[in-house]
């Protein structure tokens, strides 16, 4: 394993161990609901479902349609805050 992948693995492990990953997930969920991202995405889902048909929609269909748009629609402020938190964690626990 290269040094880099070892470091990544360590960091990821630490993130999970310290509970920070769960906290970050929850933080993101709350922020995205607050800023209306979830409602926007739900509206987009409605379009997709009406397109593909209510009976035949699969999780795959949704994932393929939703994920790219979801990634793009995250507001800058939320993104900045998340990145900040992750950097702070790394600064504390890396090296």
């Amino acid at each position, binding site marked *: 394993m290269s040094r*880099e992948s070892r*470091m*990544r693995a360590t*960091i*990821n492990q630490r*993130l999970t161990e310290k509970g920070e990953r769960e906290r*970050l*997930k929850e933080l*993101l*969920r709350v922020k*995205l609901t607050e800023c209306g991202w*979830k409602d926007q*995405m*739900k509206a987009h*889902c*409605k379009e997709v*479902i009406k397109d593909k048909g*209510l009976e035949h*929609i*699969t*999780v795959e269909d*949704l*994932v393929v349609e*939703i*994920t790219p748009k*979801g*990634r793009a629609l*995250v507001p800058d402020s939320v*993104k*900045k805050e*998340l*990145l*900040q*938190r*992750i*950097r*702070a964690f*790394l*600064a504390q626990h*890396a090296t």
Partner: protein
Amino acid sequence: MKMEDMPLSGPDNTKLEALVHDIYSELVEDACLGLCFEVHRAVKQGYFFLDETDQESMKEFEIVDQPGVDIFGQVYNQWKNKECECPNCKRLIAASRFAPHLEKCLGMGRNSSRIANRRLASNNNMSKSESDQEDNDDLNDNDWSYGAEKKAKKRKSDKVFLHFKQLSFIHLSLQIFLFIHFSCGENVDH
């Protein structure tokens, strides 16, 4: 700017910065997946479109966004400027000032100096002995009953019921008597 705000620089740190972004992407994707599962379940269980019905009902219950009206379309400050006639002094009072006015006018509220008003009234009409019974006004305080405040009734009820002070004196004496009686009784052989 704080240290955490700046992207990490330097050769080693570009890798760290890339890691930061990877972790972020993972978190976002996780959120999107969560949403997909939630929506998919709602669709299959049949509750996804529950907030939409036929067009007619949607129109009927649409949120109203006009000035002076609440979201149901009802006027909400209709009674603000209406005037009411006071049953006591027969004046026309504004609705928002009506309750405090009644307090003062009927002599019933907390700050209405009811005792002073009564004293004034009774001093004008009656002899001195009547005003001695003003003490129990505070103790027989009954803010919520309108009828009890009528002066004719109040004078009768003063004579019928014992004063609260007299009652508590009797109660206290009885307690002391019983205490002495039973504590002395323990010393007697049975």
